[in-house]
């Protein structure tokens, strides 16, 4: 690397690290220095190794990988030979035309089509057809070339247009009929094979095709991203494409993908939380030294305080009652809270859980009968009897029934968690229940997955309930939920 090249690389890296920090990744000074050192040693031409080397210096938590990778692709996608097609001596545009002609000669000689076309002259149907062949053969070079060609032809990208990448992706894929691709491939494979394949073979084949289609789609996305970055610059694109860290994903607006990454993040998180709490308990097992008691006991050692006595340790573990709205928009929040609570249920002397929409049902037994929290949650979603009239949240009615049926079980050792957005569909609030509850319980808390600024707007009446509780907490994401639960245990 020449001195100027090196300076250029360091500038690029500086911008890159800045974006990582803006996305919430805690890059320290040492780590930044390591990254600067790393890029001196690993050539960007070895792109994957380069990417992992940077990641190794900058992120120390696997849950941060997606966020890292997205920004990496934005910053470094225009660098290196990736942008040119002839990496590893693979097909270039010219070779591709050649290839296409060969394929036509070989497979379709005699079907009347004049075989002389270049890629640019192909109709969308022909491109789709060519794509299907390359997918079936797993021809990486051709797939990559077609991805570029497809974006160029179908995405309709115009410089300066303020349209997001998903729009271009949609247009490109629609023109290729990628949705119908899997079925067509399976059909073609079935026709080609001599003996009918078994279910196992079919399953494996479908998975292989799905995998290739996903790879192709990623290639199309990468091409779109490269063009957007070229048009608008890395910094602007990093801002638009930024993916939140799993712990910052909002429960109420998570996409399917994000839900999955959330679910993945939950397990290590609960494990660590449990370990942390267990350690906390262990260290706090002893209260402060009880001077009087120590002296009293020292008499049996002839006045030598040989056996220190400690004051009674921390108060007994609380009994927990979770009462959760599981209607549509807050269902995911309820699910994650229940999972988290049960994962650390050892921290409580007892955990009982109730779910409601406009009717309420106890689901404690689902969690007792299995080790598998996911399975219990599944039963909560499918078996609990939570609909009373119309299946729209009615906090007032649910609370009233709760109080009537289980109120006697709430006592001075009980901590009650009320979960939901308190959007009551303009039903009666029956806030008196919460007031009475707070009178007998040790603590009552309300956890709300909505941003604070939405509280008490529209049909949200969280304030009406909240004023009787020991606190209303905003729990929009895993980070906030975790910090609340940690305080609680």
């Amino acid at each position, binding site marked *: 690397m020449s001195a100027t090249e090196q300076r250029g690389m360091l500038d690029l890296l500086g911008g890159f690290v800045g974006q990582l920090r803006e996305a919430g990744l805690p890059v*320290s000074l*040492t*780590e930044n220095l*390591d990254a600067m*050192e*790393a890029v001196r*040693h*690993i050539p960007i031409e*070895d792109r*994957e*190794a*380069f*990417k*992992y*080397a940077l*990641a*190794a*210096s900058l*992120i*120390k*938590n*696997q849950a941060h*990988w997606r966020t890292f990778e997205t920004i990496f692709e934005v910053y470094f996608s225009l660098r290196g030979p990736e942008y040119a097609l002839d990496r590893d001596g693979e097909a270039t545009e010219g070779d591709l035309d050649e290839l296409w002609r060969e394929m036509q000669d070989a497979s379709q000689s005699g079907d009347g089509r004049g075989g002389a076309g270049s890629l640019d002259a192909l109709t969308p149907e022909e491109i789709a057809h060519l794509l299907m062949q390359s997918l079936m053969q797993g021809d990486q070079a051709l797939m990559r070339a077609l991805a570029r060609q497809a974006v160029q032809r179908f995405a309709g990208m115009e410089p300066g247009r303020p349209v997001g990448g998903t729009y271009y992706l949609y247009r490109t894929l629609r023109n290729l009929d990628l949705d119908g691709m899997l079925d067509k491939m399976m059909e073609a494979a079935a026709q080609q094979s001599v003996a009918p394949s*078994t*279910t*196992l073979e079919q*399953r*494996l084949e479908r*998975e*292989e095709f799905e*995998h290739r289609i996903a790879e192709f789609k990623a290639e199309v996305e990468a091409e779109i991203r490269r063009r957007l970055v070229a048009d608008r610059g890395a910094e602007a694109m990093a801002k638009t494409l930024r993916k939140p860290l799993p712990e910052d994903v909002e429960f109420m607006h998570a996409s399917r993908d994000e839900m999955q990454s959330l679910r993945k993040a939950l397990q*290590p998180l609960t*494990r*660590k939380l449990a*370990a*942390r709490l267990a*350690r906390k308990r262990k260290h706090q097992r002893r209260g402060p030294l009880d001077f009087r008691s120590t002296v009293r006991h020292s008499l049996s050692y002839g006045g030598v305080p040989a056996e220190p006595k400690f004051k009674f340790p921390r108060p007994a573990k609380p009994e927990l009652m979770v009462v959760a709205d599981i209607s549509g928009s807050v269902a995911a929040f309820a699910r994650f809270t229940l999972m988290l609570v049960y994962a650390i249920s050892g921290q409580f002397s007892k955990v009982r859980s109730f779910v409601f929409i406009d009717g309420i049902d106890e689901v404690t037994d689902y969690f007792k009968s299995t080790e*598998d929290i*996911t399975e219990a949650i599944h039963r909560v979603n499918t078996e609990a009897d939570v609909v009373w009239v119309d299946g729209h949240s009615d906090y007032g009615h649910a609370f009233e029934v709760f109080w009537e049926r289980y109120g006697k079980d709430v006592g001075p050792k009980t901590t009650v968690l009320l979960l939901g957005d308190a959007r009551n569909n303009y039903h009666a609030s029956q806030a008196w229940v919460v007031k009475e509850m707070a009178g007998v319980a040790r603590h009552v808390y309300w956890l709300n997955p909505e941003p604070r600024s939405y509280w008490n707007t529209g049909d949200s009446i969280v304030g009406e309930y909240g004023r009787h509780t020991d606190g209303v907490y905003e729990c929009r994401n895993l980070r906030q939920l975790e910090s609340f639960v940690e305080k609680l245990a």
Partner: protein
Amino acid sequence: MAGSVGLMASEQVQRFESVQMVRDGLRDLDYLADDGIAGVAYLADRLGKPVLVEGPAGTGKTQLAKSIAELTGARLVRLQCYEGLDESKALFEWNYKKQLLRIQADRGSDSWTELHDDIFSDEFLLTRPLLEAITADDPVVLLIDEVDRVEVETEALLLEILSDYQVSIPELGTIEAKQIPLVFLTSNNTRELSEALKRRCLYLHVDYPSMEREREIVLAKVPDITENLADQIARVVRSIRSMDLKKAPSVSETLDWARTLMLLNIETIDEEIAKETLHILLKYQTDIAKAAKELSVDE
């Protein structure tokens, strides 16, 4: 031992010429690295930094350190971590028994000062893996295995040594490293390691391998297996890993399965065989039932 000179990373001999060399070298030793693994191992050498390797069980974390040692012609010094591991097992300990014997043997003769200097010398020092690694004369690779099992206090001790590459022993003074070895720490992520330790290390996440890499691993590790069978194995395992299971099969389980199939003289995996041997890949009864159903082999 004392008085040796600490080396800066930059003064050290570089062990690898390029990332490609690491990749190829490991492959020759039947360890199939991906770009991440090879890149980070190379970088660790260049920057003189330890690598923290994290990932699910049985994905080749420990083997990586072993193979790198072999590749560089270094001796592997391994510190196996467990709950309760402390300084005396990780770093050094005085050999009390031997010291007592010497004191008794010498009773009444030498002066105390002389005796004291004598019993607190190298001869009575039990060198544990950490001290051994940094004071070795020959090249070593230090493997600190399953570091997530130790207590926070022991972690602090590790951090100190990995930062300064020196150890102070009250009776002997400061012992400086003769070399900065390649260091690998592995973790199954059962608890959060301290930020300080993570900052000190390069981080490598080793996940289940891609289908292609797993096939290569099977081919490399199972003698006489055909390409065709290795390919089928890798595909079925990928399929099973995509299911929602309590515990997905690890690479070691894939290898066990492959060896079993070889013993049974099997050339093609059909549904019947898959069903009968699922218990080698999966450990939980519920997982086995689920997988059997999804592969639709339990009609």
